[in-house]
């Protein structure tokens, strides 16, 4: 007969050990459950998160994003509110929020990267950015410029907008030209097609595209705006003079004079109307043409970037970056959301129809959402290798930002296109840029 009394175990568990072991077990299980369900910590429940974004050029993306944010909020008990305003109004809004010390919990820089201006008042997001970098095979080298100041991450890059060449194959064929690969090819096409009623155009005006497009040409011609430290101006070079000379030639030979009045959407309409032979613009122009003029769209192709005289290819992207005010009332939720959207970048790309380009290397695995299965846009799947941003090869510092927002570079190209002497234009432009850098150094 067996003794019914319990046999004392050789291993005894006291109360403290029990609490420690079960506590760790419960915490681990909760964490695993949270990770599985992509849920944020329970402390977020009952809180609110206000975020400010721009009105995306692909309206369907905003609809997707708002729904995505709401679902995340519902799953985590966070009341999410997303405000969208035009991208050009963001800097004024941030200046007001900063002055008031109140506003949105999660903010967004687009095109104008204000990380350098506001970093003292932004939450250090190094843990988030470094975590994402490790998880997704490192950040693109140029991403650091958008998010880092002094080696710390004060902004987390979300995506950038590529600005490739969109060209009409039927028109190129009509003058016996093959697919373009260089700026010289594009110039030749413009020269041959303008007399046939199909000129080209790049903005010589005060708009974002003018800043991006002429910088792309400059960088492809080997121009460096500053050294890698961002402290010393290098734009006063023979490469810059060559780029200006080339721009003058391509304007005279193959552009419409409308370019002096164009805004960011004019070239979209120019291509979609069937007049333009090629433009240098984001793929929103490609999508606009697809939606409004299928016949033209059928013959429209994409070149990631044209090569300069020495074979250099640099596409100038428009970066989009998350940041959190120090006065944010819900830093934990804002951080969680940044990670959540980064973890779902594939869905975001799909929703943007290939417009959003990721900053994280691993997200370039082919086929990329929105691009990989597109016979024309598939060429953009290696865009990370040729993308630079303003200030190149230096970072997007406050003086580089001021040079951008005061349109000095497009104005240099405008002056030369209108017949100004290259040396006089260089003297004026470099003088203005030096003045800006000197003022920033002094302050």
């Amino acid at each position, binding site marked *: 007969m067996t003794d019914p009394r319990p046999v004392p175990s050789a291993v005894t568990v006291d109360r403290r050990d029990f609490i420690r072991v079960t506590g760790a077990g419960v915490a681990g299980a909760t964490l695993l459950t949270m990770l599985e369900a992509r849920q944020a910590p329970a402390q977020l429940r009952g809180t609110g998160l206000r975020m400010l974004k721009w009105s995306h050029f692909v309206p369907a993306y905003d609809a997707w994003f708002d729904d995505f944010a709401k679902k995340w909020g519902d799953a985590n008990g966070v009341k999410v509110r997303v405000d969208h305003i035009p991208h050009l109004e963001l*800097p*004024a809004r941030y200046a007001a929020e900063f002055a008031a010390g109140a506003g949105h919990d999660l903010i967004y820089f687009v095109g104008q990267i204000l990380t350098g*201006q506001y970093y003292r008042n932004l939450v250090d997001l190094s843990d988030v950015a470094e975590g994402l970098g490790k998880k997704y095979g490192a950040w693109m080298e140029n991403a650091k410029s958008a998010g880092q100041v002094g080696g710390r991450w004060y902004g987390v890059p979300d995506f950038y907008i590529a600005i490739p060449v969109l060209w009409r194959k039927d028109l190129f064929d009509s003058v016996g030209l093959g697919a373009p690969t260089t700026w010289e090819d594009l110039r030749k096409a413009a020269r041959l097609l303008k007399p046939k009623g199909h000129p080209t155009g790049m903005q010589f005006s*005060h708009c974002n595209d003018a800043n991006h497009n002429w910088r792309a040409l400059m960088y492809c011609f080997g121009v460096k705006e500053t050294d890698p430290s961002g402290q010393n101006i290098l734009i006063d070079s023979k490469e810059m003079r060559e780029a200006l000379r080339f721009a003058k030639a391509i304007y005279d030979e193959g552009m419409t004079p*409308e*370019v*002096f009045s164009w805004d960011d959407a004019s070239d979209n309409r120019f291509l979609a109307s069937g007049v333009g032979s090629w433009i240098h613009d984001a793929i929103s122009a490609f999508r606009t043409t697809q939606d409004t003029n299928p016949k033209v769209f059928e013959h429209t192709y994409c070149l990631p970037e044209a090569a300069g005289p020495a074979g250099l290819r640099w596409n100038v992207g428009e970066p989009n970056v998350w940041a959190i005010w120090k006065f944010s009332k819900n830093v934990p939720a804002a951080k969680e959301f940044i990670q959540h959207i980064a973890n779902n970048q594939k869905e975001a790309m799909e929703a943007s129809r290939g417009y959003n380009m990721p900053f994280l290397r691993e997200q370039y695995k082919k086929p990329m959402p929105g691009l990989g299965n597109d016979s024309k846009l598939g060429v953009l799947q290696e865009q990370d290798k040729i993308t630079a941003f303003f200030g190149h090869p230096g970072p997007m510092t*406050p003086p580089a930002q001021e040079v951008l927002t005061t349109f000095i570079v497009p104005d240099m190209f405008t002056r030369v296109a209108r017949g100004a002497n290259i040396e006089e234009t260089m003297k004026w432009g470099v003088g203005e840029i030096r003045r800006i850098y000197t*003022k920033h150094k002094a302050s």
Partner: protein
Amino acid sequence: MRPWWRTPTARRYVFGYTLLAPAILYVGLLVGIPFLFSLYLSMSDASVGDPVASFVGLQNFEAALENQAFYGALRNTLVFTIGAGILKGLLGTTLAFLLVQSFRGRRLVRALVVIPFTLPIAVSVLGWKWMFDSQFSVVNWALSRLGLIGAYGSADWPVWLGQPHLALFSVMFVNVWRGFPFSAIVLLAGMTSVAPEIIEAAKVDGANFLQRFQRIIVPMIAPILFIGTAFDTVFTLSDLSIVYLLTNGGPDGATEILPTLAYNTGIRAGALGRGAAISLFLFPLLLPAMIILLRTLRRRQY
């Protein structure tokens, strides 16, 4: 003996200043303090993201004067303000004379002419942006159909916002389109206050239309005219929206005015101190104009 503050004179003073207090408070809080703050900013190295600013004296003003774009913006601001002011005056006067006549549907017409002034500025300017579009401009298409210009793509196809003089004219035109109904309404208010007997008497005395306008109407409505002109000058000189939405100062600074330069430098580029200094250059332009207007007005009242 009653203390001074209980005398009827003192009570009148207290009552008067009490009535005046809200206006003084309003001007002090919403005009005085921001003005002093912008003075402080203009003499500091303040930037949008740095709350700690140090005193730099007149360096920001010197920086503005060293900036070539500043001189272009100053010239454009003067051309814009004076040109638009003259055009609004002429068109406003003409419209006021038309609207003062009695005709069927006058009330409806009077209501319709103020629409440009009452529409949200962003909406109306975006409408004009489309009408000035380089490719799809309805103005160009109409001119082309009338045979006044060639077809799209021809050398005489105007690029309204792309050719420097045309671009400045276009932004001025939109300002005039938006503002001249205001001038007309101000004039109309004045003209309706002139007693018809006086005009009739002048007619009997043989005064022609211009003489009646110059010798009777203008002197009688001068106070209203001065106030209207003062308002219009301030609105035009500080008008950022039209230029910002139509051209953002381009091409190559052809339409850059001091408000857009100040905004792009101070807010978009983040250099608050330099932006404030540029915007304060409007002050010496406005101050003498306002002093002259108000002194003339005062003299006329006596």
